[in-house]
C-alpha cells in the first residue's frame, strides 16, 4: 500500500530524517516506534503531505506520489489522527465530522438534519454515545478522539495513521479503539500505529519499524520480538545506563514545600502534595490529568481557587510567580520555546534573565559580569554552544534545556519544577539532564518533575504522585514505583 524509500528531510539546523525506509501493506497494523525526536512525527507529516521530502520517493497504492498539500493526500485515502486532534472546539460534533465533506441538501446547501443523522450513525458504528449537537469543546478527551476516528470513517480510508492515540484515553476506551482498528484492518485498511507503550504494540500490531535519531533501524515481525529486544533497538543501549542512582532509601528528608487542598478551577481538585529536599518527586498521569495545572498553581502561574501552600514555615493562600521566585521556587515550562527561552537572544542573556539584580550595579546592567556568570554556567552544565554570545535558537533541544536549568538553578534555592524536561531531547542529552536533576537534588533542592514517559518516572523519581482527572489518586514511595501501580492509579475511576 505504502512504500517509502530513501526519504530525507531537513529543517533549518536539524536533519529530521535521513534515508528512511518504511513499507506498509494493506490489511496490516504497522507499528512505528522510536524515542522522542526519532523522526516519527516528521515521517507522518511527510506521508500526510504536510511536509515534502528533500530526497527519496513515496509510493502509494502502486504509484509514485508527490503530495503538494494535505488535501491531496487526503483525497488519495490517507487519514491521520494527530496527537493534537484537528478538531474545531467551537463547531459541533456533527459539523466537525463532516467538515470539508458537508452533507448537501436543498439547493446544494448544507443539510443540517442529515449531517446530524449521519454523524449519529457513524458514532453508533463506533459504539459510543456522543451527542452530535454538542460542541467539541464540551467533550471529554476520549470522546474527542472518537470524533476523530469517526472523521476517518467518512472517507474511504486506505491508510490510517494514528499518532499516540492512547496517550489520552484508558481502559475500556482503549479496548474499543483496538477493536475498531482490527475491524478496519480486516477490511483491508493499512494502519500505521505510533505509540510509546510497547505492550500495545505486542497486543495490536503485526509488524514494527524502529526509527532512531531520524534514521531507519529495522523492520521486524512483532511476533519475533521481545520487549527487551525492541527497547534496545529503540534506545541503542540498555535503559538502566541512562539513570543516575536514586537518593538513598531510609533517610527522612525535610519537607520544603507542602500544598494542602490546592484546587485550580475545573482542573485540579483538592490536591495534597509534599516536596522534600534532596528528592526527585514525579507527577505522573495521563495528559490532561491536571499535572501541569497543579505545578503552575504551586508556582503562582494559575490562581488557586482553594487551599494553601506552605514554604519553609510560611503559609500562602495566594501565590504569584514573583512571590514564588522570591521564595526560591523555579519553573521550567513544558514549552521551552513559547514560555521559557528568548530564542533570538544569546545564552548569557537567557541565563541571567530571572536574576538581573545579580548582574546589575545601581540599576545598570553589568555586561561583563553577565558574561562571566554565563561562562561558568556553560562549563558547570556542559552546555554545548559557541560561548555566552551563542544564539539559543540554533542550539539542540537538550542544550536549550540546560540553559533553562542554569537560569533557574541560580534563583531557585528550594524547589525546582520541571515540566516534561526531556521532551524533544535526544537520548544522550536525556542522560545529561537526568544527571543534572540528580545533582540539583543532591545539593538539597526539591525537584518536582512532570513526565509522561513511564521509564523516566520509574528510573529517576524517588517519590511519585499520580493524578487522574484533577485528583491525586495516590503516592508511591521508594520500592513501590513500578509501571503497573502507576498505570492503575492513573486510570482508576474516582472513588466517589
Amino acid at each position, binding site marked *: 500500500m505504502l512504500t517509502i524509500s530513501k526519504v530525507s528531510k531537513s529543517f533549518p539546523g536539524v536533519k529530521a530524517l535521513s534515508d528512511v525506509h518504511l513499507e506498509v501493506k494493506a490489511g496490516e497494523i504497522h507499528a512505528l516506534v522510536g524515542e522522542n525526536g526519532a523522526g516519527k512525527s516528521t515521517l507522518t507529516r511527510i506521508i*500526510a503531505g*504536510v511536509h515534502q521530502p528533500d530526497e527519496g520517493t513515496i509510493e502509494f497504492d502502486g504509484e509514485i506520489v508527490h503530495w503538494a*498539500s*494535505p*488535501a*491531496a493526500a*487526503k483525497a488519495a485515502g490517507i487519514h491521520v489522527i*494527530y496527537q493534537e486532534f*484537528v*478538531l*474545531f*472546539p*467551537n*463547531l459541533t460534533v456533527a*459539523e466537525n465530522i463532516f*467538515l*470539508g465533506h*458537508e452533507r448537501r441538501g436543498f439547493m446544494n*446547501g*448544507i443539510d*443540517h*438534519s442529515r449531517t*446530524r443523522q449521519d454523524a449519529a450513525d457513524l458514532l453508533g458504528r463506533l459504539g459510543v454515545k456522543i451527542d452530535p*449537537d454538542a*460542541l467539541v*469543546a*464540551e467533550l471529554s478527551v476520549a470522546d474527542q478522539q472518537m470524533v476523530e476516528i469517526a472523521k476517518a470513517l467518512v472517507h474511504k480510508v486506505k491508510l490510517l495513521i494514528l499518532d499516540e492515540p492512547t496517550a489520552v484515553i484508558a481502559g475500556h476506551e482503549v479496548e474499543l479503539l483496538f477493536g475498531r482498528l482490527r475491524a478496519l484492518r480486516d477490511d483491508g485498511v493499512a494502519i500505521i500505529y505510533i505509540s510509546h507503550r510497547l505492550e500495545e504494540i505486542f497486543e495490536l500490531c503485526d509488524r514494527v519499524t524502529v526509527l532512531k535519531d531520524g534514521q531507519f533501524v529495522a523492520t521486524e515481525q512483532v511476533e519475533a520480538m521481545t520487549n527487551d529486544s525492541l527497547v534496545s533497538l529503540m534506545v541503542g543501549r540498555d535503559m538502566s545506563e541512562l539513570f543516575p542512582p536514586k537518593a538513598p532509601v531510609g533517610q527522612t528528608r525535610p519537607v520544603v514545600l507542602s500544598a494542602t487542598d490546592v484546587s485550580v478551577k475545573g482542573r485540579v481538585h483538592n490536591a495534597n502534595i509534599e516536596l522534600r529536599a534532596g528528592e526527585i518527586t514525579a507527577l505522573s498521569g495521563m495528559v490532561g490529568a491536571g499535572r501541569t495545572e497543579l505545578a503552575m498553581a504551586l508556582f503562582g502561574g494559575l490562581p488557586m481557587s482553594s487551599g494553601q501552600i506552605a514554604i519553609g514555615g510560611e503559609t500562602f493562600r495566594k501565590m504569584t510567580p514573583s512571590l514564588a521566585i522570591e521564595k526560591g521556587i523555579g519553573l521550567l515550562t513544558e514549552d521551552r520555546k513559547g514560555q521559557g527561552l528568548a530564542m533570538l537572544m544569546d545564552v548569557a542573556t537567557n541565563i541571567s534573565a530571572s536574576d538581573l539584580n545579580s548582574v546589575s550595579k545601581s540599576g545598570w546592567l553589568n555586561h561583563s559580569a553577565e558574561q562571566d556568570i554565563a561562562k561558568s554556567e556553560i562549563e558547570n552544565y556542559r552546555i554545548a554552544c559557541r560561548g555566552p554570545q551563542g544564539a539559543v535558537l540554533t542550539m539542540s533541544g537538550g542544550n536549550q534545556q540546560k540553559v533553562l536549568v542554569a537560569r533557574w538553578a541560580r534563583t531557585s534555592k528550594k524547589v525546582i519544577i520541571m515540566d516534561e524536561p526531556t521532551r524533544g531531547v535526544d537520548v544522550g542529552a536525556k542522560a545529561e539532564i537526568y544527571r543534572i536533576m540528580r545533582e540539583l537534588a543532591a545539593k538539597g533542592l526539591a525537584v518536582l518533575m512532570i513526565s509522561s514517559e513511564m521509564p523516566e518516572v520509574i528510573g529517576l523519581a524517588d517519590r511519585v504522585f499520580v493524578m487522574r482527572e484533577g485528583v491525586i489518586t495516590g503516592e508511591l514511595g521508594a520500592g513501590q514505583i513500578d509501571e503497573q501501580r502507576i498505570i492503575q492509579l492513573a486510570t482508576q475511576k474516582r472513588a466517589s
Partner: protein
Amino acid sequence: MTSVASIFTFLTKRRGGLLTVIGLIFVLTLFGVIVSDKFGTYSNAVNILEQSTPLAIVSLGQTLVIITGGIDLSIGSMVSLASVLLSGLTAGDPVMMYVAIVTILVLGGLVGIINAGASIYLRVHPLIVTLGTGAILQGITLLYTQTPIGKMPKGFDELAYGRVLGLPLGAVFTIVVFVVTAVFLRKVPLGRYIYATGDDAVGAQLMGLPRRKVLFVAYGFCGMMAAVASIFLVARLGAGQPYTGQNFTLTSITPVVVGGTLLSGGRGGVIGTLMGVYLVSLLNNLLNFLSLSTHYQLIVQGLIVIIAVSVYVENKRKV
C-alpha cells in the same frame, strides 16, 4: 427535528449573549420611553433604523473578517474613499452614477482582497496590514479632495429616506443582506470554513480546508460592504466627504463584539451583530434625547467595546 426547540437550545446554550443584548435593547427602550415622550414614537423608531443602516452594513463585513480571526481597520478609510468617489465621479449625471457605483463596489472588493493577500503572502498580521491600507486609502482620499465633492442625481436620497411597507428602505435592505449572509454562513460549506479557519487556522490547514479562499472572500466582502455603506451615507448626506467614514473603524467593531462574536475568531454570527447595531444605535439616540454632546457617544462606545470583550472572554474560558 423540532426547529423551535433547536433554536431555543441555540440561543440559551450556544449564544447566551444574544439574549442579554436583546434584553438590554428592551431595557434601554423602556428607559427612553420613561425619560422622553418623543422617544417612543414611530418617527423616532424610523429615525433610528435610518441612521443605523450604514453602520449595520459595515459591521456585517467586519463580522465575517473577525470570525476568521482577523480584523479590518481600513474599513473607515474605505468608506470615506468610496463616498467621495461616488459623488465625485457621478457629479450629478444619472448615467455616471451607475459607473461610479460599480467602480466603488469593485474597488472595495479589491482593497479587501489586497488586505487578505498581504496578510497571507507577506505574513503580516491583518491588524497591521489593514492599519496600513487604511492610512493609504485616507491619503488617496485627501489627494482626491479635501472638501465635500460632487453631487448625486435627483431622487438619490430616496435610498436614505424612502419607505418600503412603512419601513426605511435602508433598514429593509439591511435585514435582507443580513439574512442572506446568515444563510450563507449556515448553509454553504465555505461559510463553515470561515468559522473553522478562525477557530484553529493550523488545524484548518492540516485538514486541507481552503484557508486562503476563506480570507479572500471575508476581506473582499468586508471591503465591498464598506462601499455599499458609503452609498447609503452619500444618499443621506447628499455628497461624499473625505472624513465621512473616519468613525466607522471602531464603531464597526463595537456591534460585532457586543453581538457575541469572539475577537479571537471561530465563534459568533451576523444576527448577533445586527442586534449589536440596534443596541448601539438606540444608545446613541438615547444620548441625544438626554441632550448630551455627541462626544459622549464616542466615550460610551469605547467603554462598550472594552466591557463587551471582557464579558465574552470570561465566557470563553468557562467552556
